[in-house]
């Protein structure tokens, strides 16, 4: 019974993939677990790991967020612009979190209240955000305060600070995943009509899911700013694709209602490890995107097919748990 629960979990294929990728990465590059190396890859991945949680929130309510990459980039260049204007670090962090909430609120209002198609609405906002980003800074440059950058690229007792920060993010996510709101969001994503019929304010729930996604986007943008230490309008643009791929590999359904944030993070870890492996075995950076893209597509196909097969195998279990979820939601 316990075993079946483990392997029929939507995040199971992602866990397997992440472990396989980690083993492979270690065999290619045994130094990966040294503190210096861990600082290297955790700082380069922290932004993605955080952004995938925002994507998960959007996907869970049967939405999608194609503006993640542009949003993270906007927060990144805006933060650097404020630092250059002489703002204190705390002030910038607060301002950027508010900016993220505003971006999320804009997406949420378009999708929840104006009932636009989530795919196209966030696609359109991504261009507005990209335009603003390029308006603020059209080429990489600027610098974040040295102290914050040093902290993010440092380590405490051999553990990279970026990883410790991510533990805090996961604790925050734990609060989200344990909240009544999360249950309502899953109910809305699984079946919006039934959720509405059973008295849930589905429009407001969708708006809230995007507002919260915007918060994680802002966190991701701040992490990118402090890890990289500069403003780059294009650095985070691939996050849109990578977060969707990570979340889907991690077992979050594009149809809404199933999956978990932890699974999505595992998926994102797999996605991130792929590029590290590609670099580790000495692939030229020019080939990296091609190879990572192929691995991603294969991973997606395998995970989705495997997920469906496992789901079919344990259909009775899934049906029962779905009933339980609905009972709680109502």
């Amino acid at each position: 019974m316990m075993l079946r629960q483990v392997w029929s979990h939507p995040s199971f294929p992602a866990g397997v993939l992440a472990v396989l990728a980690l083993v492979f990465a270690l065999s290619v590059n045994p130094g990966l677990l040294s503190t210096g190396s861990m600082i290297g890859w955790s700082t380069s991945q922290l932004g993605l790991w955080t952004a995938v949680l925002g994507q998960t929130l959007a996907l869970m309510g049967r939405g999608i967020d194609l503006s993640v990459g542009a949003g993270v980039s906007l927060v990144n260049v805006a933060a650097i612009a404020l630092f250059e204007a002489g703002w204190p670090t705390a002030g910038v962090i607060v301002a950027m979190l508010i900016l993220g909430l505003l971006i999320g609120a804009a997406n949420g209002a378009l999708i929840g209240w104006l009932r636009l198609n989530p795919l196209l609405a966030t696609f359109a906002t991504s261009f507005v955000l990209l335009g603003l980003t390029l308006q603020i800074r059209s080429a990489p440059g600027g610098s974040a305060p040295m102290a914050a950058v040093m902290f993010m690229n440092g380590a405490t007792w051999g553990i990279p600070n970026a990883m410790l920060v991510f533990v805090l993010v996961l604790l925050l996510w734990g609060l989200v995943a344990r909240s009544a709101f999360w249950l309502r969001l899953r109910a809305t994503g699984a079946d919006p009509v039934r959720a509405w019929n059973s008295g849930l304010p589905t429009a407001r729930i969708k708006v809230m899911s995007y507002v919260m996604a915007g918060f994680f986007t802002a966190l991701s943008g701040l992490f990118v700013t402090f890890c990289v230490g500069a403003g780059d309008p294009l650095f985070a643009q691939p996050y849109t694709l990578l977060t969707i791929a990570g979340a889907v590999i991690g077992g979050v359904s594009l149809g809404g209602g199933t999956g978990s944030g932890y699974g999505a993070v595992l998926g994102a870890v797999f996605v991130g490890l792929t590029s590290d492996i590609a670099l580790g075995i000495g692939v030229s950076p020019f080939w990296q995107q091609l190879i990572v893209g192929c691995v991603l597509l294969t991973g997606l196909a395998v995970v989705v097919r495997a997920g469906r097969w496992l789901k079919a195998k344990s259909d009775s279990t899934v049906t029962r748990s779905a009933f339980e979820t609905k009972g709680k939601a109502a």
Partner: protein
Amino acid sequence: MTALARTHPLRRIPHAGSLGMILLLLVAGRLVNPSFLSPMNLWAVLSVSALLAVASAGQTLVILSGNQGIDLSVGAIMTLTALMVSGMAGSSDEAVPLTLAVVLALGALIGLANGIGVRFLALYPLVVTLGVSFVIEGLALVYAQSQPPQMPGPLIESIGIGRFFGIPWLVVIGAVMTVLMTLLLRFTRYGRQLYLVGSNIRAAQMAGVPVTRVVLTTYAASGLLAAVAGVLLYGYVASANLSIGAPYTMMTIAATVIGGTALSGGSGSFIGTVLGAVIFSLISNLLIMLGLGPALRYAISGLVLIAVLFATSRDAA
């Protein structure tokens, strides 16, 4: 169309909204700058519209095919094609036929890969085409690294900026494409099957429509048409770089949706898409005349897309 206007109320004119919008933009352009209506500027706008319309032809087919169909790899295919034509044909005309055969076949193959992902792996078109576009961009990066882009030869260049009896070649090609696409959608077996699949895939299957063939053909055609658009874009811009096609992904979707093709599939026409392309190009042209830089133009086209979505395609629930 004029006969219809006399006998029917205004709203029965096909594409009345789009045509009204175009008229409004022309008037606004004239107010901003008197030279907006000069033949030179109008031909320029029409050339850009024709280019966008050709690029949007495949997108229209894919969106018509419904079932969340969307092709986010259009821009990447255009970039790769432009770079490959530049690298393979060089500045002479001798290698052009072979090059065209190669890039068009490659475009169709990439489209077919999209179709296989959508139909056989049953992945969401959004995810498949986004993933494929990531791979294609990687391919373009590798290719550009080995073959630095060059200036186009006389043939490609004359297609891009030359004229045929005073009409830009691009406009001629766009007009031919409009006729062909309309014939394809209205009068061929494939066209009718496409609308059926887009309206209700299960009913189409029950009625004996070869759904798999229609879906694969549609995505392959989209890749092929994106490759054609990539060649035209290369001729028009007269140089190739790694981000040359990227904006077209968004622009083709915008043109198709502005043109009245339903995102849910099964309803729409290519003439609508052409008008959508003209509207989008007029707006960009107007923004350039107002002296806005590329960054603000991005932002404003995003806002325009939101406004159009609001007016045309709100979800029912």
